[in-house]
């Protein structure tokens, strides 16, 4: 640097920074910038209160790399968003939400879009700061009182003394020739760049204070405690009600809890008719229908069929052959090797069961079949049993079961064929 220092700089203890030329308007600035560049100066800049049209070409500024950075950030945003949504919702914590696929692209678009924008915008903002070397809280040019108008209504060219072709005398002439209304030399006092110590102090204090919450959280996460954690709103703990075992002045006996009225029967206690409610008699399954559903009417069988079609047919099939839609689809899927198809109700084992056992299977479930006592009341369960018997009969019928006139029709048709 000293190699290029002018005599003026050697006289003072201040460092020579460069030249500053003021121009009245934007066109003059553009022309001067072009002149300076053509004079072989590279380390120079122009300053204006607003972006001046055409200055980029005059100064030979190359297109900024910023759009590429922003594009990269956008792609990164998309990838981060998609991977995050896939991993959190489909892998690490799979949760069925209204039957939507765990990784549902349509539903993931909004968040993906927002993250693309967020990443890109942050990159554009911090990118422009980084490319411009901002923030920079000290600039030697700010020594110049005149330069303060660069952000208001004046136009400037500054030439850095570190430029290889810097020659103060020659450049001063050049700038004045290009229409500068004033040219001055800028020096920097060696101490001028110092930031006041009070700022440092304030900075240290702020940073230390800012560290307290994260440290506190880190400490709490690492340690255990035998006191309950902080619990600011106690609404749910302090509800205006009586505790079960507590005293109360409200009732004569001083107890919060009330005794049931005489004659109260606990729920479930009335079901002592084993035949009807459990299909058993002693240790044995019954082989007859309970008297409550006798005599069996056609309406009762049809009720059984209707209930059967709702609750049983999905697995056992409409005719009880074990070919319900659930089973068929489960068997068709390659990814359900563990599926055990339901029994055919016409298999010998089922047909030989006492009817109480069928009733019991419906009530309490059997093997992989769940219990249906919650969904189907006993009366309907018996109706289903009756319908199952009818199904078994129908699927194992012999010719002699038909009434004579029906049998005749059948034989006639066989003959024709």
């Amino acid at each position, binding site marked *: 640097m000293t190699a290029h220092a002018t005599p003026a700089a050697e006289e003072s203890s201040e460092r020579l920074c460069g030249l500053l030329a003021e121009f009245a308007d934007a066109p003059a600035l553009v022309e001067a910038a072009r002149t300076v560049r053509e004079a072989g100066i590279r380390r120079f800049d122009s300053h*204006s209160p607003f972006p001046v049209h055409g200055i980029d070409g005059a100064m030979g500024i190359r297109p900024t790399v910023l759009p590429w950075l922003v594009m990269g950030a956008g792609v990164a945003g998309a990838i981060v968003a998609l991977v995050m949504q896939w991993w959190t919702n489909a892998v690490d914590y799979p949760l069925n939400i209204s039957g939507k696929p765990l990784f549902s692209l349509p539903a993931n678009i909004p968040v993906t879009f927002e993250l693309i924008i967020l990443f890109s*915008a*942050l990159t554009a*903002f911090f990118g422009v700061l980084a490319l*411009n070397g901002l923030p920079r*809280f000290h600039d030697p040019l700010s020594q110049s009182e005149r330069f303060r108008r*660069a952000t208001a209504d004046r136009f400037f060219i500054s030439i850095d003394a570190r430029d290889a072709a810097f020659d103060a005398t020659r450049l001063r002439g050049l700038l004045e020739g290009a229409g500068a209304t004033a040219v001055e030399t800028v020096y920097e006092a060696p101490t001028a760049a110092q930031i006041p110590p009070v700022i440092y102090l304030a900075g240290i204090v702020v940073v230390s204070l800012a560290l307290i919450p994260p440290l506190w959280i880190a400490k709490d996460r690492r340690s255990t405690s035998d006191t309950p954690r902080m619990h600011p709103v106690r609404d749910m703990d302090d509800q205006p009600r009586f505790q079960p075992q507590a005293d109360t002045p409200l009732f004569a006996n001083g107890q919060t809890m009330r005794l049931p009225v005489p004659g109260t029967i606990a729920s479930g206690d009335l079901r002592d008719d084993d035949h009807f409610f459990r299909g058993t008699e002693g240790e044995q399954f019954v082989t007859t229908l309970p008297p409550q559903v006798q005599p069996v009417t056609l309406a009762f069988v049809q009720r059984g069929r209707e209930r059967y079609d709702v609750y049983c047919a999905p697995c056992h099939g409409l005719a009880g052959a074990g070919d319900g839609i659930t089973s068929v689809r489960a068997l068709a899927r390659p990814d359900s090797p563990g599926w055990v198809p339901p029994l055919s109700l016409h298999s010998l084992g089922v047909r030989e069961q006492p009817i109480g056992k069928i009733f019991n299977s419906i009530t309490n479930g059997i093997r992989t079949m769940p219990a249906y006592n919650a969904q189907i009341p006993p009366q309907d369960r018996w109706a289903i049993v009756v319908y199952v018997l009818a199904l078994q009969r129908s699927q194992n019928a012999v010719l002699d079961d038909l009434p004579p006139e029906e049998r005749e029709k059948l034989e006639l048709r066989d003959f024709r064929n």
Partner: protein
Amino acid sequence: MTAVDNTFNLPGQRAPLVTGKADYATITQDVCAIAEQHRPPRSWYIAFAVSVATLGVLGAAIVYLITTGIGVWGNNSPAFWGFDIVNFVFWVGIGHAGTLISAILFLFRQQWRTSINRMAEAMTIFAVMCAGLFPAIHVGRVWLIYWLAPYPNWLAMWPNFRSPLLWDVFAVSTYATVSALFWYLGMIPDLATLRDRAQTPIRRMAYGLFALGWTGSARAWHHYERAYLLLAALATPLVLSVHSVVSFDFAVSQVPGWHTTVFPPYFVAGAIFSGFAMVITLAVPARAYFGLKHLITPRHLENICKVILVTSLMVGYAYSIELFTAWYSQNPYESFLFLGNRPFGPYGVFYWIMVTCNVVIPQLFWFKKCRTTAWIMVVIAILVNVGMWMERFVIMMSLTRDFLPSSWGLFIPTPIDIVMFIGSFGLFFTLFLLFCRYLPVVAMAEVKTVLPHGHQP
């Protein structure tokens, strides 16, 4: 400073966007003077006192709500969402004009934006803050709001990304961030101007800190202009996406009156509509009060009125197409809601206020007199915002009449509901008045580029 009429229309000629004898120096002086005055006039203090008092009421209501629970609101079953979401959508909607003016009009090279964009962007940010307040407190336990964020936690749970409410969290927080960055980036050169004009070291340091050392260097302007363009290009789809995502909160459900495919563009149009109305409400008094009539000219206001008219027609289109489709669908739930309950049900009066304020009254802007008379446009703009609040309320009340008559109910706001809504205006105006007092209310650097000689090389 009298306003010159620059609203004329001569094909082949462009009306000036800055009237009077403005040059770089006077613009700088006029705008900076507002932030540099030692003592603002008494009216500023009065307005500020009223705003802060209202803000205080809001604060008290929030403290009461948090310590008691959100049962203090009128929300109930079936109206699980009440004023909280109405106010949220209302404020987010208002927050759309700022970024729209900044970004979309920038891309369309509508240079009239330069005088009003700073004010509108500030308005956006404050409106989004008001908006964010309501969903934040409606979670009840606000200190657990960070559970909304996807972070690895000891509950081993993740948020559900298939929920539109989570999309909302991302959309609104992204919008708040990007709007703030856009606003701040645009303000850096103007903060530098204030720094360089500062008379006291404290002001110089304060503005200098936020000006980040800007010196108006051509190399910096080069990156800066591109960054600004990029942010505008990013903010434009963002504006559309935010209110679309807000509309998804409703439209992905099956509730009649909520689930209709036109919701996303219809919400966006409504948001722009209400946002521009708020710009008129703020800009007309501000330009008179701060002496900015030569920068925010009648032409600016007329253009805003035209945008309001266009968006009013879009909103009217959406109302009509909803009514038509409700009938056309022959879906009993849709027809009942749109043709029966909304216009003639318990909240029918709100529906008719909505239609009047949003579709009928803005038609006055077909007349040039209404587009150029300050008090008329302010009245219309305020009515538009009344109407837009009603719109959100009417939409929300679809909840009270869903599929099963057995689950029907009513929503009646409590005093706390109403106080919190009014209080949110306190927050908004407090911030806005502070902005007017300390920051450059007009984008000086940008206005300078639209001066007649600003762009001449």
